[in-house]
């Protein structure tokens, strides 16, 4: 229940997005005449991703999808549900189980004029495609002296789910982050999922597009029309003054749950959804830190070598004098994700940890003043 509330809060406070236009229609209820504002239809995130894919495939005939079970099975998370019926078996290609092979095939097709969306059934499976993602996806535009571009979108579900075991609970953003030549984007709401996927498909750069296993069924509204969101900009989730909390993907909701608690205690945190895990939107990040003078990173990847590690380093290097407190990181434990519920819960960041961290940071600073 708390999660649903925080989701609603999130969706309501997406500051950067233009307000959804609400149609006002007269609605007649039996026995009374009432004018009720007709709400825009809420859809689930998987439907939003499907809409984006469908719209872009319709718009550009070189856009195609490749992956395991994306066609006849409809996609393991329904993102490509029934699209093969509309576009055929070649445009929504059911691949055999050979990640490195079909990732390379997608890259070769991209180099020669197509725009493939390559799906990893689970992001973790893309470890098998690391050779292609690193060497060819990331580096090929450079080693060819700019002759070939690789406009692929590599997308799929990652993150810790519900007792899926260590191998299905991986967060690959930290593994891919050092690859030069790729952009990393993490979606979190229905609105930004659709808008970012559209942008990613249209981008000439290779985009690694992180969805989360537990967010496919969250509901929300999409932007109107052909709205494409910038791949390089962070999202202001909640404006505040006390502390800047940087987060992404599902941890956005964990943070907003904590924010509900913190508000009651009189805190006023600013919450920023990074969206672009690489490159960082330093404009939004530095503006926020200059205002609050405190930075807390809440992420789901492991602490060692994570996105937060990079962000913390960048903040320390470029915004040292703006800080009143050391940068804090809340990340997953450096352990494989256990199957047992309690251990799994202890591996990832929980809302109470966020509350404690903010209290600690703010009181320490308050005490110092």
């Amino acid at each position, binding site marked *: 229940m708390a999660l649903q509330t925080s989701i609603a809060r999130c969706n309501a406070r997406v500051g950067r997005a233009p307000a959804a236009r609400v149609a006002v229609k007269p609605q007649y209820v039996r026995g009374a005449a009432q004018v009720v504002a007709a709400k825009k239809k809420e859809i689930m995130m998987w439907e939003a991703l499907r809409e984006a894919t469908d719209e872009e495939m319709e718009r550009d*005939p*070189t856009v*195609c999808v490749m992956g395991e079970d994306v066609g006849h099975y409809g996609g393991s998370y329904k993102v490509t549900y029934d699209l093969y019926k509309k576009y*055929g078996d*070649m*445009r929504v*290609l059911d*691949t*055999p189980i*050979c990640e*490195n*092979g*079909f*990732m*390379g*095939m*997608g*890259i*070769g*097709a991209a*180099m*020669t*004029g*197509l725009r493939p969306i390559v799906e990893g059934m689970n992001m973790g499976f893309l470890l098998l495609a690391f*050779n*292609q993602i690193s*060497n*060819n996806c990331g580096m090929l*535009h*450079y*080693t*060819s*002296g*700019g*002759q*070939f*571009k*690789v*406009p692929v979108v590599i997308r799929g579900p990652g993150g810790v789910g519900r007792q899926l075991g260590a191998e299905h609970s991986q967060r690959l953003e930290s593994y891919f982050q050092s690859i*030069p*030549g790729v*952009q990393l984007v993490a979606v979190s709401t229905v609105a930004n999922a659709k808008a970012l996927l559209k942008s990613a498909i249209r*981008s*000439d*750069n290779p985009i690694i597009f992180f969805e989360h296993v537990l967010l496919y069924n969250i509901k929300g509204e999409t932007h109107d029309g052909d709205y494409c969101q910038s*791949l*390089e*900009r962070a999202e202001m989730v909640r404006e505040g003054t006390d502390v800047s909390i940087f987060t992404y993907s599902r941890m956005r909701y964990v943070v907003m749950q904590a924010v509900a608690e913190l508000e009651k205690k009189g805190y006023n945190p600013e919450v920023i959804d990074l969206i*672009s895990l*690489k*490159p*960082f*939107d*330093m*404009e*939004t*990040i*530095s503006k926020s830190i200059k205002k609050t003078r405190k930075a807390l990173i809440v992420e789901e990847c492991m602490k060692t070598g994570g996105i937060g590690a990079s962000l913390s380093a*960048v903040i320390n290097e*470029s915004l040292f004098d703006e800080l009143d407190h050391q940068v804090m990181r809340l990340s997953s434990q450096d352990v494989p994700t256990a199957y047992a519920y309690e251990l799994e819960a202890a591996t990832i960041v929980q809302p109470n940890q966020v509350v404690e961290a903010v209290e600690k940071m703010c009181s320490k600073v308050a005490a110092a003043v």
Partner: protein
Amino acid sequence: MGKHAYIGCVQDLSRHRRVRDQRCVSAGVNSSPAQGAMASAFARTQNGRVASSRAAQPCRAPLRVRAVATTAKKDSSSAAASKAKLTPEVAKDLYYDMLLGREFEEMCAQMYYRGKMFGFVHLYSGQEAVSSGIIRALRPDDYVCSTYRDHVHALSKGVPAREVMAELFGKKTGCCRGQGGSMHMFSAKHGVLGGYAFIGEGIPIGVGAAFKSAYKRRVLGDESSDSVTCSFFGDGTCNVGQFYESLNMAALYKLPHIFVVENNLWAIGMSHMRSTSHTLGDADFPYIYKKGPAFGMPGVRVDGMDVMKVREVALEAIERARRGDGPTLIEAETYRFRGHSLADPDELRSKEEKAAYAARDPIPQLKRVMLEQGLATEDDIKAIHDRVAAEVEDSVKFADESPKPEKGQLLENVFADPRGFGIAADGRYRYELPGFTSGTAAVS
């Protein structure tokens, strides 16, 4: 006349030898007589080595291997037969191309030892019949994908020798602006998809280009889309998983892709016999062509030292692909006269094996055939030699005189869309910062 091997600088024990040696010495080398002396000493050593090995071994008749594992019908139409027939034009083109490949690679060896090129350089000398036999049968809109042994594939496909040499020298006029190097030859204009250091990683790329060709036809409705992709790789690659993944997908989707295994029996120091298992029932040799039918495509083994045989097989495979009948696996039996790379001491291969293949050198083989069949005269052949020598000389001169890349090139090609470097603190995209075009901007 028929026993000459072309190892090292061009040596032909005909009356043209002295002239050619001089050309060798002066080829692309500026200035000092000391350098000239070094080059001619090099040439003489090679001469000596060849002479002694030739004296030691009787010349073995070329092994005409043509094994075919296929249920596909051989295209016996007259059109196919006439295409395979060698005309003077085709013969001379093949000779020119093989000679260019050989002279170019031997020049690379010289330049490497002279400190003009660096890193890992893998030369193709000896394998020319495969490159010329297959790639010269392709169209400009066809694609070629290779491994680190890619210089000659690029040349056969039409990339100017100048651009390849400049790339090897690390100059900005190289085909990849000096950013790729020996192992990463790319040409969008000539359909060369690379140039890959990790063996096997190029094959799916080639399959992807073939996928595009099929997609254009089947999805976008372009009936004229029938471009073919050839991926070249070695015997060692045939144990990499991506090889099998690619065979499967190419056959499954009936893609216009040709798998070309240049089986030169050695993967650095690992003998093919020690690394690859036999097909059940075979006692003698781990045949790679037999893996084709297991994946639903014909497999052909061909004498890779005989350019005419290679061409014949290539034409059939290309026709098959263009027709829409799917991929072919070609195993070319070939040999590299030099070590794996210029850093390889090459101590494991026996003298006997090297001599046996030296005797089957594809270039004098073709020359013999051309003269015997009246496809070319001695003068024609000399003219080709002159032309190739001039071209190689010119490529070295061009590379030598070309400027090195400036630091400004550092950040330019990381992203096709430079917004990928993101937004700086002042709100500008980082590529808009001063210093981006001079390679000094902070981009992370």
